[in-house]
């Protein structure tokens, strides 16, 4: 059930330079599954899609971790506790939890990291093994939630393009290592499309690989067909899938990357 809500900001933090995390009080949003998102009114013509970095059902709270990239996120990041936001959600399909007996690994880049954190929070303790988390960024300053993942008991591997922290390079190398040592492992990935394309390529033939995509959106609820990406529909035919309602989380075999 999708709701149109006015929800208060109850807490605001700045976890990294240019990033702001906003806690919202909302029983409706707190029913979300990790990977789902909300669409928020800012100042532009369209709402802005933002995932949940934390989902606290017990306390009826969710959080959003924003990177300031343009006018909409700048406006949102400037809001203070007490402000009411105009939010539509929860939207889209979230991640399915890992199969009880299978190992799992999370691969995140940039603002793809927050929904993965929500996933580990939700399932971290009910699974076969503690998950491995591979985080990539251009620079160490852009890494998000490293300590939080560690606090949940995850094995965290870091890569930076410029080598300022962890391995120099992309997430591909540590992911290859992990895949080699976990032949039946499942992967959850969220981040820039080229990263997701790598993950899809490296995991080809496996099942239980979930990728969360981004696309520019219009309506956020499946009506406008703006947010499409190439993939295979229910019929198995190649065509366009909607990130807002068919996703944002897809099984890798549903998607077509060129």
């Amino acid at each position, binding site marked *: *059930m*999708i*709701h*149109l809500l006015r929800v208060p900001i109850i807490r605001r933090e700045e976890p990294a330079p240019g990033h702001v995390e906003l806690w919202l009080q909302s029983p409706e949003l707190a029913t979300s599954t990790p990977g789902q998102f909300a669409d928020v*009114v800012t100042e*532009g*013509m*369209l*709402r802005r899609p933002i995932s949940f970095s934390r989902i606290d059902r017990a306390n009826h709270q969710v959080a959003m971790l924003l990177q300031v990239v343009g006018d909409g996120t700048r406006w949102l990041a400037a809001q203070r506790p007490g402000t009411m936001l105009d939010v*539509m959600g929860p939207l889209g399909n979230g991640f399915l939890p890992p199969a009880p007996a299978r190992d799992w690994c999370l691969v995140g880049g940039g603002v793809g990291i927050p929904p993965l954190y929500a996933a580990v929070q939700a399932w971290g303790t009910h699974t076969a093994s503690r998950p491995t988390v591979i985080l990539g960024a251009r620079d160490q300053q852009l890494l998000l939630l490293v300590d939080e993942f560690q606090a949940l008991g995850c094995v965290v591997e870091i890569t930076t393009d410029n080598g300022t922290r962890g391995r120099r390079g992309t997430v591909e190398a540590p992911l290859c290592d992990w895949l080699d040592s976990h032949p039946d492992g499942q992967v959850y990935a969220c981040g820039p499309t080229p990263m997701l394309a790598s993950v899809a390529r490296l995991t080809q033939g496996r099942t239980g690989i979930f990728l969360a995509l981004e*696309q*520019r*959106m*219009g*309506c*956020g*609820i*499946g*009506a*406008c*067909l*703006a*947010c*499409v*990406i190439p993939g295979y529909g229910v019929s198995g035919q190649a*065509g*366009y899938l909607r990130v807002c309602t068919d996703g944002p989380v897809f099984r890798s075999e549903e998607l077509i990357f060129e």
Partner: protein
Amino acid sequence: MKLSVNLPRGLVLKNPIVAASGTFGFGPEYKDLVNIGDLGGVSVKGVSPEPWPGNPPPRVWETTGGLLNSIGLQNHGVEAFCAHDLPFLRDTGTAVIVNIIGHTVEEYQRVAERLAKEPGVSALEVNISCPNIKQGGMSFGHDPDQAYLVTQAVRKGSDLPMMVKLSPNVPSPAVIAEAVQSAGADMISAINTLVGLAIDKERRRPALGGTTGGLSGPAIKPIALRVVYEVAQRVKIPIIGMGGITTASDVVEFLMAGAHAVMVGTVTFQYPRRMQEIVAQLPDELLRWGFSSVQEAVGAALPSKRGGLFDALT
């Protein structure tokens, strides 16, 4: 206040606020959020005889006061529409307007014939902004003769109330309106989007996957009002006006310019309940400007209603 609008061939809208084609899906998408039965009508996204794939993403881009889209008329074809979408809409109690598209005159006629057989269709809206693939891709809506032929074919295909939707990308949409009126159109809807483009400086290419896109939203309201105002003076059939409406005050402007009803599009993305809010506010807004019914406002700013004052100095 009486808000209902009587249109040709028995089409009745319970109020003059209709969801614009392409912004309200094929029917069920907004059902969690909008009480669809409260709307005057819903015009569904363009439906073609066979499925159309649409354009590569990205398909939307924001501009000042406007939205560019290059959806490219993606739809799963008239059969799927009749099987999966129409049954939902039919039961909502709103007027169901099916926006139809084709690449040839025959394609338009085929969709119209198919829909004529299907219960629950209140009216057809003929989108003539599609490229005519037999005539080198030039839009049907850019040439009065082409527009005439499409309208005539749809008229042959169906007895449903029919409106033809004008493109604003021509010097005189009123000339097209005259042509479709003489070909048997019952109503005009106007305007469709203006062709625009955005540059993605980072990727050094046009921002939209479809290169150009259609501009909608408040940015185009003055152009929409001009088209309605001009067309209203050239044809006798009613006009459904649209382009950039976001408030009840905007609706009154379109009525005064000569529209009998309006469609509301882009604003729904940001405020899904705005159409219902406008319906609720419309009576007060009409009274504020001295009108005691929708009908009274229609054309109130046209020269014919202003007793020749029209070109006088203020």
